[in-house]
């Protein structure tokens, strides 16, 4: 009986020891695999399937896919991407964000529009999940305190707005003392830029005529808006019309309405209208936060240009999204290199520590974030549409 007890006890100890040893070996093995493969997923939120900016959304999606492919190859990671169409619509963005938060994604790229970030920022903050936008430029997104996990790789409107206004003044795009018409599309992004540009232009002696149209209008109603704006607001003393809109297609339609009514004014669009496939009114200026990398000598830019060729024509919207995706991918890689499994918390911490030199950045500036998620270094870019509808980069000062 006693021997049997000893034997049973010995068996129990051996079994326990075996389980412990096997478990430890197994854990080490799993950790080794995780470290080797560094597998995880991220989400890309962009308006690539619905809404008024699908062209730009698709460009963002393609550049994000390219960035991930390049980063996976360079870092030896296996990061997959979930594609979430937001339609540039805060309500749809909220729905998509909730499903991203419920998924295993450790970080997100996007969303594209400032109004979308306003809607989803607190959700990401609550989930402790980093999200990096390549195009949301409303200054308050970083300063409001509501979006604690928000980052952006583009300068905000406090850079773009004054840059544009000062360019107009310096290069006399409108004769001194004349009227400048500025039209917002009733979205946060558009109204933010108007608020920044108007006082600068007014202080320079221009009369600023601020009008609005409903950016969600379509068809005959939209045309009615544009015809009326062109008819009643573009007078003989109006030489410049600023269109800080999110829809390049609408800007094109407005430009054609002006042409149809025989109004000869210069248009000045902002990043939302930057779409070489859609907005091609000759003589127009278009500012953007992303550079033209098509002729760049930088190895990074050359690699992007080569990789993106298969997706067709692109504008200046893709590059910032490439950069945003690269930041996320590098953060995940750094977590894996530190021997940890990527989680929302450690990826967020790694994103905060991002430090990419100007030489390795497609944005032409170092990528390093302030505490509020804004870039430390900021630059703007300007394009002029020539008589053939091509975008030609010009110095923005």
């Amino acid at each position: 009986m006693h021997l049997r007890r000893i034997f049973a006890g010995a068996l129990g100890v051996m079994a326990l020891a075996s389980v412990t040893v096997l478990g430890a070996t197994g854990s080490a093995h799993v950790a080794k695999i995780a470290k080797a493969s560094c597998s995880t997923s991220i989400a890309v939120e962009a308006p690539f399937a619905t809404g008024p900016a699908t062209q730009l959304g698709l460009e963002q999606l393609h550049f994000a896919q390219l960035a991930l492919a390049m980063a996976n190859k360079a870092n030896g990671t296996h990061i997959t991407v979930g594609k979430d169409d937001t339609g540039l619509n805060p309500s749809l963005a909220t729905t998509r964000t909730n499903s991203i938060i419920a998924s295993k994604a450790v970080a997100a790229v996007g969303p594209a529009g400032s109004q979308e970030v306003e809607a989803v920022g607190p959700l990401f903050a609550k989930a402790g999940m980093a999200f990096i936008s390549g195009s949301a430029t409303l200054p308050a997104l970083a300063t409001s305190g509501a979006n604690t996990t928000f980052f952006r790789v583009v300068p905000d409107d406090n850079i773009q707005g004054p840059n544009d206004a000062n360019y107009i003044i310096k290069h006399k795009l409108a004769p001194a003392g004349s009227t400048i018409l500025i039209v917002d599309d009733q979205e946060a992004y558009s109204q933010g830029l108007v608020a920044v540009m108007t006082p600068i232009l007014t202080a320079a002696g221009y009369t600023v005529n601020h009008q609005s149209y409903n950016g969600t209008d379509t068809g005959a109603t939209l045309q009615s808006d544009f015809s009326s704006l062109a008819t009643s607001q573009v007078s003989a003393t109006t030489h410049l019309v600023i269109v800080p809109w999110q829809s390049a297609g609408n800007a094109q339609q407005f430009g054609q309405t002006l042409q149809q009514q025989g109004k000869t004014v210069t248009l000045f669009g902002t990043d939302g209208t930057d779409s070489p496939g859609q907005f091609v009114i000759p003589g127009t200026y278009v500012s953007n936060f992303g550079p033209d990398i098509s002729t760049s000598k930088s190895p990074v830019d050359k690699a992007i240009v080569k990789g993106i060729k298969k997706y067709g024509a692109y504008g200046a919207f893709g590059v910032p999204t490439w950069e945003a995706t690269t930041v996320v991918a590098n953060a995940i890689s750094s977590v894996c290199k530190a021997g940890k499994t990527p989680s929302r918390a450690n990826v967020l911490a790694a994103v905060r520590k991002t430090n990419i030199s100007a030489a390795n950045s497609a944005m032409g500036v170092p990528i390093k974030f302030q505490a509020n998620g804004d870039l430390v270094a900021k630059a703007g870019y300007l394009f002029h549409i020539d008589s053939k509808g091509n975008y030609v980069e010009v110095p923005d000062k």
Partner: protein
Amino acid sequence: MQIFIQTLVTGIVTGCLYALIALGYSMVYGVLKLLNFAHGDLYMVGAFVGYFAIQWFGGATALIIPVPLLIIFMMVVAGLGVGALGVAIERFAYRPLRNAPRIAPLITALGISFILEDSVLLLFGGFTRNYNAPAFLPFRQSIHIDGVNIWSVQIIIVVVSVAMMFGLRELVNRTLFGKSMRAVASDREAAEMLGINVDRTIAMTFFVGSAMAGVAGVMSGLAFGQISNIIGFLAGLKAFTAAVVGGIGSIPGAMIGGLVIGLCESFSSSYVSSQYSDLIVFAILIATMLVRPQGVFGQPPLQKV
């Protein structure tokens, strides 16, 4: 004065398009007492048919057929195609519900609207496409009157719309189909007892109404350029407002209602603000409902005593 005339031109052009769509609403309501909320999406489908016709003939900048021929082709194909789609919708979605409570076909109409929108989204993507009509109908082909430019496309829209409206009036007033339609609208059971093929009459009504929406879609694409799967919603809503203001079920009412809505929208955008144009248009709808619920040309319902 220049602003006034240019605004008037814009109002008439948009009003003509609303009127064409509103006619379909009115005709269908006349015979079935159904608010066909999918009607605006038929207009959207027509716009897409026109767009693909342009691409089929080489694209806006490299057309391989003369422009007048292209425009006629686009309108005919869109009219026939969308008309046939309207008939199919009636046959498979509304006819089985003809004797169901009125809420059932109404909900079905909303469902059909979403199906059409999302089908176009799935088939062709959410891209905003552009007819780029100025490439083959340049702005220099305009009439200039005292600083006001009237583009050839705007003239085409007004001429074709007026011709179609008068054609429809003749069809309703002077043909056997028109008589059948009026009989079905007046009393469906009595019409059936008199030997009128009600099913065929209703199908023909759907065909004509949908065809007009299809042609309106093509003209909208020519004039405004941008088309997408969502353009039908707002246009349909405005046209519905036009039909109600004019008197739903009344053909002259739909024509006048369309023009009233187009002009109100245009003048409120020019002289008040485009921010308030929708508010003004829908305020007119509410005011009409309060003051004259049957609309300007509508008949008050008969009270059987």
